[in-house]
């Protein structure tokens, strides 16, 4: 998927193709990585989807073709096999690679603003929208007073049909 962004990037931004030489697609999860236990494997896939490949552009390790992503996938599976809970695996990765590795940002610190932005904006918009609708409900119909007769004629000609 790195390539999608590279391509979109190129299509839109026009970056010299030279910078793309490093892309080495094979594909994401390789057959030899898959765990024998289907439950553990399903958890590994789910976790991988939420972890960022550190050297890629906005790509989870589940989709990435990079070597590092493979290492991280193997690491996740290693921890799962060792008996870690999902939470522990994520903490392990964050300890090692930093908060940057989380594709789903935490709610801690200033991040509450990110998570609350949508709902807060919605409440605000609903409030403004509702009060606007209230004024419309009680307003009195006003005619097109400020138009001259000539303009009125023109307007009705344009709007007729």
């Amino acid at each position, binding site marked *: 998927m790195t390539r999608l962004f590279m391509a979109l990037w190129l299509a839109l931004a026009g970056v010299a193709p030279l910078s793309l030489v490093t892309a080495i697609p094979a594909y994401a999860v390789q057959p030899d990585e898959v765990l024998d236990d289907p439950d553990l494997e399903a958890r590994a896939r789910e976790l991988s989807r939420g972890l960022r490949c550190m050297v890629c*552009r906005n790509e989870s390790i589940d989709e990435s073709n990079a070597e590092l992503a493979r290492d991280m996938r193997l690491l996740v599976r290693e921890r799962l096999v060792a008996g870690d809970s999902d939470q522990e695996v994520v903490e392990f990765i964050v300890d090692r690679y930093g908060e940057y590795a989380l594709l789903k*940002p935490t709610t801690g610190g200033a991040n509450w603003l990110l998570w609350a932005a949508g709902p807060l904006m919605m409440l605000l918009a609903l409030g403004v929208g509702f009060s606007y609708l209230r004024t419309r409900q009680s307003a009195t119909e006003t005619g097109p007073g400020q138009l001259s007769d000539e303009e009125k004629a023109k307007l009705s000609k344009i709007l007729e049909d």
Partner: protein
Amino acid sequence: MIVELGHFALILAFLVACVQAVVPLIGAHQRWPGWMAMAEPAANAQFMLTAFSFGALTYAFVTSDFSVALVVQNSHSLKPMIYKISGVWGNHEGSMLLWVLILTLFGAMAAWFGGNLPPTLKARVLAVQSSVAVAFFAFIIFTSNPFIRMSVPPFDGQDLNPLLQDPGLAFHPPFLYLGYVGLSLAFSFAVAALIEGRVDAAWGRWVRPWTLLAWVNLTIGIGLGSWWAYYELGWGGFWFWDPVENASFMPWLLAAALLHSSIVVEKRESLKSWTILLAILAFGFSLIGTFIVRSGVITSVHAFANDPERGVFILMILGFFMGGALTLFAARASSMEAKGVFSLVSRESALVMNNILLAVSCFVVFIGTIWPLVAEMLFDRKLSVGPPFFDMAFTPFMVVLGAILPIGAMMPWKRAELGRSLRPLIPAFVLALSVAVLAFAMQTGRSALGPVGLFLGTWLISGAMVDVWSRTGRGAVAGRLSRLGRLPRADWGKAVAHGGLGVTMLGIAGLLAWQQEDIRVVQFNEPFEVAGFTLSLTDVQRIEGPNYISTMGWVDLSRDGRAISTLTPEKRFYPVAQMPTTEAAIDIGFWRDVYVVIGDPQANGGWAIRTYYKPLANWIWGGTILMALGGMLSISDRRFRVAAGAARREPTAGVPAE
């Protein structure tokens, strides 16, 4: 020589734009007809000069003129002709030239079809449009000139990025640009109206077809990009919430809001200042998108060579136009008082709700896109905001939108009775609910995502059908059927676009909820099963293409012993660019796709093969096409053609009064 002429034409177009941005504005202010009238020929000249310039660059690409630096960097003599042409916009400089070409095209179209506009408004619209063009001409000429020559031309070029050598992506940028550059005209109309100090129903009617045109193209552009990602990237994803994608999605959401709110301006003379604000912001988000994409600020983490000078230039353009327009808005918006009176339950209120949902969801996408930058600058935290955030924060708004849309679409203007609007929808609701319950009962212990998506999709589609049917009035079925064909195209457009949204929702729900994946090492002629299909790898060969080398596998696909097709997934290697690509093989079906990708040969024999079963995948793009088609039906509605100035050519006696 032709390249130099193109370069010269570009500079000339810049100068024409400078004049056009000033003279008509003064003319409109002083009521000097001659000064206002110059806008029209100037807009034509600007467009033709830019078109010539673009033609000259295309000529350089087609003839593989390797004395032009841009051609060297993005073309190769062996490349198929279609990709030589698409190479023109497959890079920063050329795509900026396409950008201004479309900008001037919209300016020229406003001149061609603006016969009905009052002369002062028309002059101001064209002047504002031209001032945007001035900024972008300057950007190209001073920071991104596509016509630079090489002092020592090389023997051959460096080839276009192989991923761009694809029919889906070749036409993705032009549509995308027709979309978000097209919003510039809505912006120009908004600013011109603010300068005029007046917005009336006619303004709403003039601005709507342009918004629709931009929105239709943006829809097609985004759809093409998503379809390309699906078949080209090797695992069948269709949307990634990447900043570059969000950059095109935000204007799409606002344009959708704008084309609904301008209906309220036209029909009810309300929501005027909000509509003006939306028109300004929609284009503002196009500019923000351009900034995000070309500055590299937000996705800068893994360095693509980007020129900070370009980013700063675009930021200045953004600051100037948004700052100027919003200041003007603050000064003038209060003079646009609303006229229409309507109750809390009415079509108007429903459209207000539509606007709230679309605008807030756009805001969520915006916050998520810029948050990494904000967090790093203000809180010194390096973090990521990825798909899991957007899925959680964005989806609820779309669910609410889908749930209330069919009800709002049925409501009459001014005053509605909820019961009366809901009653005809009961069959649609029952149908949607039974589809959802059936899906829930049939699936085995998975999330509610699939059933909810199926409910919304079915509800939207059947709701759109009820909407169209209810327009035919009362009486015998035969009479209503015959009236169906005579409905205004705008009514059909509305139903088709809303139904299209439903089809897309069905596709997304089906794909996300019931997709199956299989990764394994496959030996020759050892069949394996995926989702009830039997696949068998029969052969792998090395094949030479025009400018690539391919490793192609042959996979027989069958079901219950019945052969369906032979799929040929490929891995290609482009030697000039030193880049591999995957070409998935897809057995496309109405209800499902079977998607096969070939990987690497394994050390102990066999090949890695990845197989996906993707239910309803094509509905995503089918719905996109329907949405675009709905928009086009609406544009072709008679009243827009009349409003666009075609009235002058129609014999007035032949038009019956309605």
